[in-house]
Structure formats: C-alpha cells, structure tokens
C-alpha cells in the first residue's frame, strides 16, 4: 500500500509540477501591463542575457560551421557532389542545428544565471521584501527575464547561424578551394524562406520561451538556501536541455 502510494506519487509529481509551471506562466502573462517600466526592464534583461551569451554562441557557431562543412564535403566528395555543400550546411543549420544548439548553449549560460540570480534573491529575502512592499515579484522579476529570453533567442540563433556560415565559407572556400559563386548561389536558390528560415525562427522563439520559463520557475521556487539555489540551477540545465530536444522533434514533425 505504502509502496504503491509512493510509486503513484512519483508518477504524479512531474504532472503536478507541469501544471504548476503552467499556472506560473499564466500568472506571469496575466501580469503584463503596457508600461514604460516593463519595456525598460525587458530591454535591460535582453541586453544582459544577450551580452552574456553572445561570445560563446559566436565561437561555437563558427566551429560548428567548420566541422559541418568538413564532414559534408568529405561525404559529398564520394558522389562528386561537393559543390552542394552550402545547401547541406545551410539546411541543417537553419532548420535544426542553429535553433537547437543555441538553445542548449543558452540554457547552460543564460538559463543557469537567471535561475541562480532569482534563487539568490529568494535566499536573501529580497523576493519576500518585494511582496511586503506590495510589489509583485512575478511581474517585476520573472516577467522581464522571461520576455527577454523569448526575444533574445531568435537573435542569438541568427548570430549562431551567421557565424556558422562564416565558418563554412572559410573552410570550404578558403581551405578546400570551392568556388564561391557556386557556394552562394546554391545557398541562395536552395534555402526556402518559410520552410527553412522561418521554421528555425519559430523553433527558436519556442525554445527561448521554454528555457527561460524553466529558469525563472525553478529560480522562483528554489528553496531559500545555498543548496536550494544550486539545485535550481542544475535542474534548469538538465530539464531545459531535455525538453528542447523533445520539443524539437515535435515541432519538426509539424513543420516539415
């Protein structure tokens, strides 16, 4: 009986938590007011989050582009089709690798720092102090960070893709000596705006919302201790990485 109970709780707990998180999202969105303050703090957070993640995303993008073209050229050469490399690199970047890898890097860099920051505010009673001043911390602390995540993820993905293409250009044109004209024209004619480009943009918006929701949620409900803050950060990376990959599959099957 007891065991059955705990097994049942183990099964129900994630479902209950998902519901709780959904309610938190509703409460956050319900507190949106069109005011200057929200605009300013959202822009501030976008700047902070973007600036935090930009360098790492540029570096990773560049090397992903290089390795992608290295592998593609290697494989395509067997069929004598190495001039198709830009098409392969472009499609996989815009559709999959750009949004997914950016989201994973974002979770590790910005997600953790959002969760830790909010968790620390909780551990030092700053959240409680706000509530006691009749200021809603969900509106003032969580919401701007969430919105900033939604805004900055597509922008960061664009940077990732740009640097990956740069990496691909440097490798395939600079190192392998492919013809730049063919490289760019294949890319230009083979990548479709709605299917390839916008598909990636939608994904990155969803991933941005997902990762930053998880980060603010875990930060906000962190136990107000040092250990609680640590747990919140760890759970943020783990859960958001897993969910990004699951959502990627779901979204791809609808978008394709």
């Amino acid at each position, binding site marked *: 009986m007891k065991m059955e109970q705990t097994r049942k709780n183990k099964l129900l707990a994630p479902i209950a938590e998902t519901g709780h998180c959904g309610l938190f999202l509703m409460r956050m969105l319900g507190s949106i007011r069109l005011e200057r*303050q929200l605009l300013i703090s959202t822009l501030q957070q976008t700047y902070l989050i973007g600036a935090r993640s930009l360098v790492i995303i540029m570096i990773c993008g560049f090397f992903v582009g290089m390795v992608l073209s290295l592998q593609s050229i290697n494989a395509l050469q067997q069929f004598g089709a190495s001039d198709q490399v830009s098409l392969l690199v472009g499609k996989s970047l815009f559709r999959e690798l750009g949004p997914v890898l950016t989201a994973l890097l974002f979770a590790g860099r910005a997600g953790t720092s959002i969760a830790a920051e909010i968790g620390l*505010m909780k551990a*030092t*009673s*700053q959240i*409680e*102090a706000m*509530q*006691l*001043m*009749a*200021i*809603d911390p969900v509106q003032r602390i969580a919401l701007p960070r969430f919105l900033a995540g939604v805004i900055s993820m597509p922008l960061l993905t664009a940077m990732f893709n740009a640097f990956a293409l740069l990496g691909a250009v440097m490798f395939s044109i600079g190192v392998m000596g492919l013809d730049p004209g063919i490289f760019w024209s294949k890319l230009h004619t083979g990548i479709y705006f709605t299917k390839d480009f916008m598909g990636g943009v939608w994904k990155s918006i969803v991933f941005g919302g997902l990762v930053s929701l998880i980060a603010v949620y875990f930060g906000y409900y962190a136990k107000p201790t040092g250990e609680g803050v640590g747990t919140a950060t760890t759970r943020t990376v783990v859960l958001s990485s897993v969910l990004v990959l699951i959502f990627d599959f779901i979204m791809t099957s609808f978008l394709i």
Partner: protein
Amino acid sequence: MKDPIIRIRNVHFQRGDKVVLDDVSMDIGRGGIVAIMGPSGVGKTTILRLISGQLQPSKGSIEVNGKQVSKLSRRKLYECRKDIGVLLQNGALFTDLTVFENVATPLREHTDLGEEEISERVTAKLDSVGLAGTEELMPHSLSGGMARRVALARAVILNPKIVLFDEPMTGLDPIAMSTVGRLIRETNDSLGLTSVIVTHNVSQMKKLVDYCFILASAKLIAEGSPQELMRNSDPAVDQFMNGRVEGPISFKYREDAGNATASPGR
C-alpha cells in the same frame, strides 16, 4: 486597550505536526512601540508573517487596520500592505540597486511623483536616518548598521501606519544597536506610527518599548510594560527576562508531553 490597530484573536498555527502558536490573542494599540519577545524558534517571525498576511492561521482571526488580513485576495492584501512597512531580519536590501534606488522603489511603484519630488523625499528620509550622502553606494558596501538604517528608511518612505521589525538589532555592534534603537523611537514618534518589534534582546527592549508580549512554548505567557514584566513573578517570565538556564522554558526541540517546548534558533 481601546481601539487596537492590530487585533489577534485565538490564533492557532501549525507546521506539520508542530504547533507553533496555540490560542494566542493580542491587542496592539495605536501609536507606541510594542515588542513581541520570546526564545528563538518560538514563533515570533511567524506572528509577523501572520500580521502581514504571508501566512494564514489555521484557527482564529487577525485584524489589521480594521481588515481581516487572512481573508483578503492577493490584490486586496497588496493594497493593505501599503499601510504596513516591514523591516526584515537582515534588511533585505535589493543588492542590484543603489541605496537611493532601494529607498525610492516603493515611491516609484505606488505613487505618481515626479523624479524631482522622489529625489527630494528619498534624500530627506536618508538624512533622517543619518545617511545623507550615501545615495550612490551599493548595499554590499554598507556596514550592518547602515544597511539596517537604509532598510528602515525604505520601510517608512510611504508613511505607513504600522511598521513591523524582525530582530532589528540582531548582529549589530552595541553602538549601531543603540543608533538603530534611537532611530526606531524617533521615526515612530515623528511619523505617529505603530511599531511592532520582534526581538529576544531583553536589555534593548527595556530601553525602547512601551508595551511587551512574551511568548513561550507556543503560548502568550505574559504582557505588560517592561517595568511590570520585570516585577512579574511567574517563573517562565522571570527565567526569560533574566536569562536563566534553569526554569520551565526548555531549550530542547521536543520534550515529553506536559513540559514546555522551545526549539533552538535557526
């Protein structure tokens, strides 16, 4: 006491199996400084949280300013809290904002004042707690006593009716302690506040407060002016006021039935 501003009636509060407050009633009158005292872990902070509506009692009622705080919706509760200033245990200043912005936060949130007016009021308030010129400092560069004073300025910037203090002197050096004590008295009298101070510091309490409640073992065991309490011959009151080890108040977490329980501080 006639026309109390805070009226606590037969309140019962429990955490898990542990009874924190058992049938506690208090009337806190308008004006003046009131202390709620008792050993660590007895439930003093819990009472403040009940008054501010952060916690709800399992039985009994709490009326603040004529409103039942435990029955308000979040919006009404937030409305009600504008009349209550709170100074948390370690000040809880916003670490990413300057001293000026910390004190200005309630004004920015709850008033339509212009930048000039805000600046004027914040400067005046900082001046009144003896911290003129600290506007641009960040909280981490303040000493414990200064941080407490900034938090006091922030708590009273909206001219509330009631201010709640959770252990305002704990962890301060003796000079800072007296400074904060004097400021609490000055602020209380000049703004006509009702101050409720939670503390376990008996000597400070004797100097500062007008009326005092003593909690032990989840119950209210005595109330009165500090002078009356010093003369009180109840063994538990005497033990607490004079800091004796021997007596009915135990320092064990749980004791067998029949005996008093008071957990060590956390």
